[in-house]
């Protein structure tokens, strides 16, 4: 079975590296990016299934990156990470994110959400994405 490809985007290197390793251990194909620009480049090269995107980053903000992804690659599911409370997340979901998680995240919860994101059919995705 094809591995689910996940791109982790957060300016905290230590956070993304550790989480990437944990996801790898759980059988994901995990890549990391530490800025919005880098993330968009990586998405262009190897379209991932899921992007875990931090909302607050220096340079390009999470919501900008989200808009670009949803515009250019509507099939990519974006799960937002935020340290600032649910309002950011609600806004993000309105803009097309699949869901939102509060940092620090619980791995079990993340696994569940990613699973349900993968299960959701393409039809729903495209509807949500537009």
């Amino acid at each position, binding site marked *: 079975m094809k591995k689910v490809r996940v791109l982790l985007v957060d300016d905290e290197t230590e*956070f993304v590296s*550790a989480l990437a*390793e*944990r996801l790898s251990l759980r059988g994901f194909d995990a890549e990391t990016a530490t800025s919005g620009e880098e993330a968009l480049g990586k998405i262009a090269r190897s379209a991932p299934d899921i992007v875990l995107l931090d909302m607050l980053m220096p340079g390009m903000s999470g919501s900008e990156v989200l808009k670009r992804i949803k515009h250019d690659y509507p099939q990519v599911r974006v799960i937002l990470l935020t340290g*600032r*409370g649910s*309002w950011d997340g609600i806004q993000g979901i309105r803009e097309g994110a699949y869901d939102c998680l*509060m*940092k*620090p995240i619980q791995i079990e919860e993340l696994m569940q959400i990613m699973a349900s994101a993968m299960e959701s059919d393409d039809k729903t995705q495209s509807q949500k994405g537009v």
Partner: protein
Amino acid sequence: MVSWLRQKLTGFFNSLRDLPDYAESPERYKVLRRNIIILMLVVTILPLFLMGLINHYLYKRTMQDEIVQPMKILVNKTRHSFEVFLAERLSAVSFIASSYTCAELSDEKNLSRIFTVMKKEFSGVVDLGFLDPDGVQVSYDGPYKLQGKNYADQDWYKETRVRGSYISDVFLGYRKLPHIVMAVERSHAGDCQGSVLRATIDTNRFMEFISSMRLDPGSDAFLLNKSGIFQTPSKFYGQVLETFPMALPPASNEPNVLQIADPKGREVMLTYVYFETLPFILMVVKPRGQVMQAWYTLKTEALIVFVIGVVVIFLVIFKLVDKLVKRLEESDQRREAAYREMQETSKLASIGRLAAGVAHEVNNPLAIINEKAGLIKDLSEFTPEFPLKDKLLPLTGAILQSVDRCRTITQRLLGFARRMDVSIQMLSLNEVIEEVLGFLEKEALHRNVDLQLNLAFDLPRIASDRGQLQQVFLNILNNAFDAVQDGGKVAITSFEVDMDTVGVTIQDNGQGMTQETMTHLFEPFFTTKKGYGTGLGLSITYGIVKKLGGDIKVKSKLGEGTTFTVFLPKKALALAGD
């Protein structure tokens, strides 16, 4: 004096102005009320009083002048009549004494003829007699038989011989009737030098002068000599030749008025004048009450008007100031309440922003710790026969648990600050309360807390947020449970307040709160549960209730318990995204 007055006035006005903004006691308004009343009374009654006083004085003077002046004129006129009357007769006697020879005057017939003419011309002359230089009356005409009488020992005779002419005081003499004698000595050299012509004047004429003054019955007028002996009878003070019972007034040739008390104790106005050439004093005595009757009437009327005026001013000022100060008090209270609410709101808002910032900053490092520890755990779990696996798993477990606790705190902080979406649904407040009590029933049972539930069975359903309301009641009930001792009482009552509002009262009989605690009750991070409280519970509660358009009221008495009343609108304000 001026600076002292200025200081006092400044102090007084400052006391009106510099009242503390937050009246801790109603004393402030009492002081204010008292000061305004005093000030207004002083500025209204003082001028009234002064004006009354000045008017009183002026009227009194005018009235007195109007009474006193005519009296003086009358007395002066009457004295003049006396003087003219006596002077005319003395001149006549003097004229006769000089014009006729000694022989003519000694002749009884001749003297009788002269007397007849004189009587015709000058009323009041009773008799006429001629005395030789030895004092023996050699000729006489009149109603008595006095011829041959020797007057050498009589005072008037001696005086006449010394002075040349003489008018006596009133005396009785041989005839035992009051009369006066006027006598003139023939002074020119020649025959019978030292002989004296004398006439007797009837004092009834004096009475006529006095009655011509036309005094009212209460008044008295009389003539005194300079020794204070009555020359005419007095109505009240004595008969002719008795002594005037008061001290004689100071000598004055101008009419003068004294206000004195007579020996009977009556307040009287004494008008008197001394004769210029004769040894007499004319006196008029009027009771003052009678004189001043008009004045007293006027004074009484003025006093009544003044008193009524003062009473009206008092009433108006009291009523007015009372109303004014009450209004002021109310408006102060409203302003204070508004100010407190505003302060509370802005404090909550700024602390909320701070909390959000802190939570966010803490969440990022917390996320790293979480992932690193998670990775260690994963590695030890996923790698078969990982060395120290048994040692590491509990360690990472502890780290992850701690992170979880921190996460709960930061989430709560954010929850306090967050702009939450209110999810409004129709719900029964009673149900919400019962759900919340589900969490607490065990504790109530365990601690033997008497949980009294008085839920209005017909409480209307309201449109509000179930989750948030659960949090509200959970927070308040938690506090109530913390406040009561084991075996204490917590009563929950739901009720309909009015058309638009329902309310829930949560009453405990716990330790109660101090005023200090009450003031900070809804502030974030304020807690009395040292060591285990976050100080966020009630501030979140307050925030939620406000957001839903409701209000919380707290009553508490130290040692007696606390009552929270939550008021909720039947239709919550939907402030989504606010």
